[in-house]
């Protein structure tokens, strides 16, 4: 070996030490957790189980489940004001019940949010593992909670799209098609699963606040049977009555003595206090980022740009109540002079607006000056408001969840959203009494119990039809903007009726009772197993 070769040999040896071939090219994961880490640390199970519960917050805003339950009805409209709020036609489509399966943002996003939440529940179930004899009680508690949440999301899909997919939680091959359940089969699977799991759910007395308890399970069963006729063509009000009675007779709940106190910031303080109505809640805090920054919407989405609501942040001048709803439900249905649900001035001095319904000239809370709109015209909210070409100031603005006097951020929200509450259960019971037993007196007692509490004049009814109409009006008064209106209108056959605000004179096509399945979901499902709903 000569000198040159020695140098060459040394050089090559050094170089091969520097670069040993990396044949596997296995990906080096730096900022996420692998399944083996999750499985080897049982302490992380609670964090995986947290996900399907946390994602519950995603549903209660204008672009998701809440939006479909409200912005498709007479309670809530998103008029196009000049340029504002056209948003590629999503709101016009919602209000006129004409959705495009290909491009309607919320038809697509709501489907995705609900599917993702079910997938999170499946991931949690896979990590909890299959049911074993003598397993830890915490595992049973986790499993029943997760299956309840999965059922809730499936119910939401059933309600909107009349279909939901399922997947084996233990199979991670997501390129395969899921099983698809529709209509009666979908309903039957849900109630069967719930019949097994609800008895295992934690009792309300043992439950932590925010943890879905057995009453939430019972309420889901009641909701399914309440709407069974819509979902399957066969009524189930008798079963609904059984489940709501269990909730009402539990003695856990009573009607709130201060209506708007249910919706204030830090309303978790009402938990287990007299007048606690909360059966199932989505918990929001403002102490940190909960990924739902846009949800401080109860103020921003409805009030005008120039209203500062006590603080210096902008509002978006969006949705309002329709004139027909205000006339039919409020003016005809109660005394707005006494009914505490119409107007509550407790925050007016600080924020310039009232709880409930806002109309007329608006004022700046500090200077007390009359406000103008952006062009310089007086800012007077009116009852009438067209769907298209609305002026900035048209439409009555609705505030149910008030902000904090000094919010930490315009994006954060400390009011827990009441998904289901006691007054709803009472009204469901009244409805079932009429529909199952024609028990008008029993129903009337319940409705007047609520009306008395809300300082509304008592009503009377002499027939089941009249009684059902009173219940329908009462639901509109008691539960406005709480995400029930679409279900109610469909069940009471008013959903498809023409509304003057939409400038339509004909009733909507019955296909509008069900949303289209997003084209993106159909194209993403292999094997053609996901079929479009009729009429789309």
């Amino acid at each position, binding site marked *: 070996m000569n000198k040159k070769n020695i*140098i060459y040999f040394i*050089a090559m040896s050094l170089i091969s030490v*520097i*670069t040993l*071939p990396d044949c*596997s*090219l*296995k*990906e080096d*994961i730096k*900022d*996420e*957790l*692998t*399944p083996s880490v999750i499985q080897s640390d049982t302490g*992380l199970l*609670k964090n*995986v189980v*947290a*996900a399907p519960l*946390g*994602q519950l917050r995603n549903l209660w805003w204008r672009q998701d489940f809440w939006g479909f339950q409200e912005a498709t009805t007479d309670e809530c409209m998103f008029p196009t004001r*000049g*340029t504002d*709020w*056209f*948003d*590629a*036609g*999503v709101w016009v489509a919602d209000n006129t019940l004409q959705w495009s399966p*290909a*491009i309607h943002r919320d038809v697509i996003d709501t*489907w995705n949010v609900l*599917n*993702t939440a079910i*997938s999170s529940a499946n*991931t949690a179930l896979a990590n909890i593992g299959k049911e074993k004899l003598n397993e830890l009680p915490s595992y049973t508690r986790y499993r029943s909670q997760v299956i309840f949440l999965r059922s809730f999301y499936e119910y939401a899909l059933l309600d909107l799209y009349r279909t939901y997919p*399922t997947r084996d939680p233990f199979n*991670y091959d*997501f*390129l*395969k098609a899921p099983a698809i359940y529709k209509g009666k089969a979908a309903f039957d699977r849900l109630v069967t699963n719930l019949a097994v799991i609800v008895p295992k759910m934690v009792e309300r007395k043992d439950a932590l606040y*925010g943890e879905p308890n057995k009453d939430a399970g019972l309420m889901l069963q009641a909701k399914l049977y309440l709407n069974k006729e819509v979902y399957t063509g066969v009524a189930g009000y008798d079963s609904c009555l059984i489940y709501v009675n269990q909730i009402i007779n539990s003695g856990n709940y009573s009607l709130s003595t201060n209506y708007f106190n249910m919706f204030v910031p830090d309303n*978790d303080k009402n938990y287990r206090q007299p007048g606690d109505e909360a059966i199932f809640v989505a*918990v929001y805090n403002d102490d*940190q*980022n909960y*990924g*739902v920054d846009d949800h401080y919407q109860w103020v921003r989405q409805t009030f005008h740009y120039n209203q500062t609501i006590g*603080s*210096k942040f*902008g509002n978006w001048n969006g949705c309002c109540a329709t004139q027909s709803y205000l006339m039919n439900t409020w003016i005809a249905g109660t005394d707005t002079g006494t009914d505490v649900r119409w107007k509550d001035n407790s925050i007016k001095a600080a924020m310039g607006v009232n709880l409930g319904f806002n109309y007329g000239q608006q004022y700046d809370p500090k200077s007390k000056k009359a406000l103008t709109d*952006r062009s*310089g015209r007086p800012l007077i909210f009116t009852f009438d408001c067209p769907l298209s*070409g609305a002026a900035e100031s048209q439409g009555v603005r609705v505030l149910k969840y008030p902000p904090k006097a000094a919010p930490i951020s315009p994006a954060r929200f400390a009011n827990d959203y009441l998904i289901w509450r006691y007054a709803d259960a009472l009204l469901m019971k009244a409805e079932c009494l009429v529909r199952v037993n024609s028990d008008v007196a029993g129903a009337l007692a319940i409705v007047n119990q609520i009306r008395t509490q809300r300082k509304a004049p008592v009503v009377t009814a002499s027939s089941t039809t009249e009684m059902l109409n009173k219940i329908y009006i009462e639901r509109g008064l008691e539960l406005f903007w709480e995400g029930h209106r679409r279900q109610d209108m469909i069940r009471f056959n008013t959903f498809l009726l023409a509304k003057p605000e939409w400038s339509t004179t004909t009733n909507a096509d019955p296909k509008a009772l069900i949303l289209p399945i997003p*084209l*993106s979901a159909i*194209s*993403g499902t292999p094997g053609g197993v*996901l079929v479009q709903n009729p009429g789309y």
Partner: protein
Amino acid sequence: MKLKLLNTFLLAAAFMTSFAQQGSIISISGTVTDVKDGSPMPGVNVIVDKTSQGTITGIDGKYSLKIDNANATLVISFIGYTSQKIALNGQTVVNAALQEDVMKLDEIVVTGYGTSKKKDITGSLVTLKADDLNQTGAITPEQMFQGKVSGVQIVANNGEPGAGMQIKIRGASSIRSGQQPLYVIDGIPFDMQSTSPDGINGNALGGAPATSPLTSINPNDIESIDILKDASAAAIYGSRGANGVIIITTKKGKEGVSEVNYSATVSFSKLPKKLDVLSGSEWAKYRKDSMGITDYNFGANTNWQDQIYRTAISQDHSLSLSGGSPRTTYRTSFNYSDQQGIIDKTELKRYSGRLNMTQKTLNDKLLFEAVLSGSQIVDERGPVGATGFEGDLILNALQANPTWPVRDSLGNPFQGNGVYNFFPQDRNPVAMLQYTSDLTRETNLLGKLSATLEIIKDLNYKVNFGVTYNNSNRFINQSQKLSYMAFVGGEGQINNRELYNYVIEHTLNYNKTLGSQTIGLLAGYSYQDFNVRTGNMSGGNYATDGILYTNLIQAGSSQTNWNISSSFDNYRMQSYFGRVNYDLMEKYLFTATIRADGSTKFGTNNKYGYFPSFAAGWRMSEESFIKDLNLFSNLKLRLGWGETGNSEIGTKNSQYLYQNDDASKAIIGGTTILGLKVARTPNPGIKWETTTSSNLGIDFGVLKGKLSGTVDLYQKTTSNLLLTTPSAPLSPTSDIVRNMDSVKVINKGVEFSLTGVIISKSKLSWDITGNISFLSNVVTGLNKAIYGTGSAQGQGLTDAWVEVIANNQPMNEFYGVKMDSIDKKGNVWYIKKKGYKNPRSAPDSLTYLGNPQPKFIWSITNNFKFMSFDLNVFIDGIYGNKIFNNTALLLDKNNLNQSKNTLRYLFNDKIPTLTYTPTVSDRYVEDGSYMRLSSITLGYNLNIKSNPWVKKARVYFSGSNLLVMTKYKGYDPDVSNGNGLDRNGVNSFGIDITSYPKARTYVVGLNVTF
């Protein structure tokens, strides 16, 4: 020729055999001059043929050489000049006069992992030397070849100093991100990740600045830029070659030439045109007379554009020292560049240094090459970049109430007067500038060492090791003094982004000439490791402006206002590659390459991709039947085919992994429980996109090379397109990254490049180079009808797509409704499908509105020389493209209804109502064709023959962006800021949303060589 060659070989062989016998040492000397003007030529290679003996001429063109063979042949060569071979035959004084080679056939061009002579190239490759590049006002390398190369379209993201460019070589072949070519700088493949950190959120600031990662390179250091356009040239870069490859080579020292060069420029830039908005009095009068509103009239007459734009003064100084002995060469350079933007406060400063060294050892058998470069960039930005409905600085300068005074009685920016206070949506542009700051400090380091060892004759082994490091810190402050920031008490953000990459490559090179055959073999191995770390923090609710927020970010009132995040990403690539070049009789050329690329980003089933290419060339001008025509000085036919890839997908796409998710946090019993969810829907089969392309090219030269050119015809078909598509229901996420089997993107085009030497006298010369390229692009096989790529900005335009990818349409087609007519009430009607009209934009009226991709792009460069003067005139243009003028949409007449300003031509438009709803329609789709007088440079070479110190001195005056002829109504048609990438990572193109306008610049420059 054939005979001559043979003779040369025989002669050489004869000398070789006599080599051993000759013993006496003789001195040879002489002078080399330029045929054109008889001036001495320094730096010319004088080599004894078939040996490594040789030298280089000095400043005076003189050389001397000691050899031991009186009958040797000298080869005298200089890049860009025709080489000469002179047999000594006993002479001891050999003078030579070299003729400039118009065809530059012997020019050395840089191919991947090697070099080649231009005449031996079989692929489609364009080389630009420093002289060919745009020199004036270029801050980044891309600006230096904008418009210079046929088939390469370069569109500025905007006119901000250091802004990024969108470069498309032969059209976009990919739908998703990753349409950019691969950059190889001094042999190191560059990771083109953005080096600039994004903001976390921010009310007016915080969007991705999209600055160019190439900003760290001083354009004065660039020796050449080689652009590999077709697959046969780029396939050696495998899975990263699909969008073409741009190889940047920096200047090195030359043996025997010791030089000090100083160059400096001072430039003045201004806004070429203001957009015409209503004056304060016109605005107030119209609102009073026609709308009956007197509110919000503050009596001033402010054109807010005057308040934010300025004449920017910039300077650039470069100093380089270079030199070399036969064994060592070096070149070191320093650069200071201070580039002011035409928007007040915006400024980019760069400090950079570079050292390139080569050293030969071991009897010249081992060559070391080292590169060390470092730079610091300090970039001060303005609140520019469309975020939020309230808009950015430029939008507000156009739409702000023109009756507001600029400042209040205290001298502060006017934000209300006590009686009238700013509403949350009101923005005073001057307040935005004064009360925000956005500073990015970026450090770039590149170190490279390579060693080339001649193992045996003709066989070289090379190892190349390189490290790049980039660290950026961005400091954003938005003062609570801004009316719209008062509620949150101001905001401070510190965002960090750190990139560090390693590469090691081994190559073996074998070149052998056997008679009339030359064979070249290359085999190589490459390993690269890429890392990106980010860290972000923000605070708010500050008690005071007394300390700049980012100097003490924790001074915000409580932790509830704090926001922190970080990430760490890694990927690695391992590659094997090889190339065979075969040359028969210098007439028939063949090239074959293959690369196997493995990447951690690919799925477990697809770890390696294989990318072959084949090309052939036929130098027809060497054939006797062509020679007999006595017409062509060069005629070459090139034919190539190859496959290249695109692997610009994110990492982790094949992995099932959990991540923290804020939206998955549960709150139980008052306690927050962190949520873990599956981060993405894994696709274990994920792989690269494949682009198959073929190229037919002709290079020709006629009239003794006075007219030469290139014609290329190509087709590129990209398959296995990577797209973020809907996943099957109940997947962890609603999207999955997939290779779309059925989808294809097809680009076809033809490119012409022609150079003519019109006058070539010693005192006067004039040459013209023209380029024109035609391109057509279509997407086929999309099962989903429409894929949104760019959305409109503006109130009520959330989720309104402007631009889509649709089946059988060109990429990035504009999409919306067509305006039909306006009725008596002033309502706008739109054309509905099947001939019906529709009073509003409804989904069934949406249609295709044109395309941002040009039908052709062209440029003409004129070079004149007269005595000591030189003049360069560069004109370029594009034709047949459309631009979506989102700025006009944001400024339409209805703005008067919101007490904002509007553009005069929109105000004067026939649309009569103020309640008109701006809709994504053909109203805003404009012709983007333009012809631009891009630059004129007049230079003068000072007569320095009397000065013993100075070798060369040149002063020049230059103007760039002097004239634009276009119908486009916005600031400038050369824009494409769009919305960057949408949530699916799809590029938008040709959307103008209040882009930072391109400046008109005048430069005075000086270049002295000592």
